[in-house]
């Protein structure tokens, strides 16, 4: 540090004062002849003053929380002022951090979701109140314990291992209020810490299950009276004494009863697919054989497109449930046939590549406008209500396809050009393909 700057301000003044005092002492010593004695006396007084100031500073530093800074002149005053400034600033920052922390805590406690912060080895670093009560964690005691040791649900552990390949996982906690919790893992590429967001989805799950039960029960209840009605209608159609005037209405009634039965069967099938969340049984299903059978069924119908082509490019089988795969393919094939005029064609193709197995059903039918494609798999969604009713069908076919495909880890892709035809493609992952 340059000397000039060190000598600035009060330090310079103090030095001048010291030099002045010494000069006066020197002059007084020379006048009175006791140079040594007076010098020693003056220096002693000066030193005593310095030590006193030092002691006052020390005392204040120790009691700085309660006492005001001492009023000292000179360089000691400067030191007191500087220390006081640093101390004040620190106090101010500390208060701000504490306030922020307190606000943060209040905020996280008020958060409707639970949050657990995890370290690199999934050890618990911090969690908020909701997470504690929902997951049964205990404050302080459980810090540092790996989360999979305390939240032991196999699905959650698998989800943690896969590092969020799915978006979230739902687990059931029968203890303490029978809750359903949705856990969502948030990872950032920047830090090794992870955040688990916990949501209480008990209400949603209950509502969903009530809805599912309602649909299933209602369908069941409607089916029994409908069977009776359809039975009498069948008998009436066969009745030779029936008035000719009534024949046509009764035939129409029977057709509509059949359609209703179809809708109810599809509803039941859909609710069954939804209710059983587990993976379907692991049969080895011969896709080629199944598609060939579907083609033969279609060819035996009166109203059908003239050309139905089958391209089997693989002999591989698929792992899954035979009945569900059948309902996927038959829904797609019958849809294609329904919306394709007699002079059009339908092509069914099965092939396997590195990305997995694929079944595509292409038709040269009326096609679907782009804006309808994302909504096709919704229940009872109709592109053109008038036309669809005439053609028939339950309006649930593609919803069933979607759910059954999901249960086989598959996806449905739809490409279509209005007026020229559509392609519905089912993609199955490679793990599901069994090479023969």
């Amino acid at each position, binding site marked *: 540090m340059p000397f000039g700057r060190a000598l600035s301000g009060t330090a310079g003044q103090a030095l001048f004062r010291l030099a002045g005092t010494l000069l006066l002492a020197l002059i007084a010593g020379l006048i009175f002849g006791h140079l040594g004695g007076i010098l020693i006396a003056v220096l002693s007084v000066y030193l005593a003053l310095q030590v006193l100031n030092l002691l006052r500073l020390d005392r204040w530093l120790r009691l700085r929380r309660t006492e005001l800074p001492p009023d000292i002149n000179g360089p000691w005053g400067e030191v007191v002022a500087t220390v006081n400034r640093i101390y004040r600033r620190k106090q101010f920052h500390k208060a701000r951090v504490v306030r922020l922390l307190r606000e943060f805590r209040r905020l996280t406690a008020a958060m409707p979701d639970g949050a657990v912060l995890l370290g690199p080895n999934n050890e618990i670093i911090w969690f908020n109140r909701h997470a504690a009560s929902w997951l*049964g964690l205990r404050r302080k*005691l459980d810090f540092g314990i790996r989360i*999979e040791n305390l939240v*032991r*649900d*196999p699905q959650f*552990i698998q989800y943690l291992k896969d590092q969020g390949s799915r978006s979230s996982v739902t687990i059931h906690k*029968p*203890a303490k209020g029978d809750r359903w919790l949705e856990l969502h893992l948030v990872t950032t590429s920047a830090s090794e810490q992870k955040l688990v967001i916990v949501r209480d989805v008990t209400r949603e799950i209950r509502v969903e299950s009530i809805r599912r039960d309602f649909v299933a029960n209602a369908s069941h209840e409607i089916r029994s009276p409908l069977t009776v009605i359809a039975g009498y209608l069948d008998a009436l159609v066969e009745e030779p004494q029936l008035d000719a005037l009534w024949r046509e209405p009764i035939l129409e009634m029977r057709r509509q009863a059949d359609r209703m039965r179809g809708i109810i069967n599809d509803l039941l099938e859909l609710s069954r697919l939804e209710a059983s969340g587990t993976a379907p049984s692991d049969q080895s299903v011969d896709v080629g054989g199944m598609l060939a059978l579907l083609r033969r069924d279609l060819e035996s119908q009166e109203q059908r497109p003239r050309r139905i082509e089958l391209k089997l490019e693989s002999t591989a089988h698929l792992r899954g449930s035979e009945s569900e795969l059948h309902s996927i393919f038959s829904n797609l094939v019958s849809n294609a046939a329904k919306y394709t005029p007699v002079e059009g064609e339908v092509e069914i193709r099965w092939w396997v590549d590195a990305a997995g197995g694929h079944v595509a059903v292409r038709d040269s039918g009326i096609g679907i406008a782009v804006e309808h494609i994302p909504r096709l798999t919704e229940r009872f969604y109709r592109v053109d209500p008038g036309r669809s009713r005439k053609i028939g069908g339950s309006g649930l076919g593609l919803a069933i396809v979607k759910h059954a495909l999901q249960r086989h880890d598959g996806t449905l892709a739809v490409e279509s050009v209005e007026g020229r035809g559509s392609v519905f493609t089912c993609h199955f992952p490679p793990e599901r393909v069994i090479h023969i």
Partner: protein
Amino acid sequence: MEKSDLSHHILSRYNEDLERVRTNVLQMGGLVEEQLKQAVEALVQGDSRIGDLVAHNDHKVNAMEVAIDDDCSRILATRSPAASDLRLIVAVIKTITDLERIGDEAEKIGYIGSRLATMERPADRYREIKHLGRLVAEMVHGALDAFARLDAEAALGIAKKDRLVDEEFDAIQRQCITFMMEDPRTIRRALDVLWVARALERIGDHAKNICEYVIYMVYGKDVRHVALEDVEKHLQQRSGRAPDAAQGG
């Protein structure tokens, strides 16, 4: 310098090994808990599909037991653990045997559940079994929590619950006998229900055993076949001294 680095490396690997074994045991416990929950659900809901699933999944529990056993013998052979580490390994070896037995009992319940699903359900819809099942599931859950937290006091509390389970089992037994005397046609079903209750009661015993291993692991004191009151007194005496808990990692 190199040497200290090396020893540090071995130590951390050792710690990792111990921690992994502990985590695996608790994972196995999680699987067993799930099996137990589903087995009771299969019976109460009368869903043969869930019952079959439980019976089918038991091999996963068995496979985990074998894998953890292997890990433990490898650690014993290569690290020669001492003191708290040794207690951890011994407790783990014992715990997984009990967990595997719980898995077997759950399999049995699932099997009986899927068989009973075809029969008419009783008027009370197996309310007693559901209650006992919940009690036992809480015991298993608490025992595994105590294992994870090395919490001997909690373990003792859970072990005491075994009496409740025994009482509940007695009640179900009496109820079944009454049913059988009233209507001999229900004997087959009542016997099956009794088997389920018996299996649940056994699971309670296994959970109690796990609690005892936790106490052993924390205090190094074998509390099997000792009255729980004596154990409690002993723990209170010791609580003045800090437990030399094996923290693992």
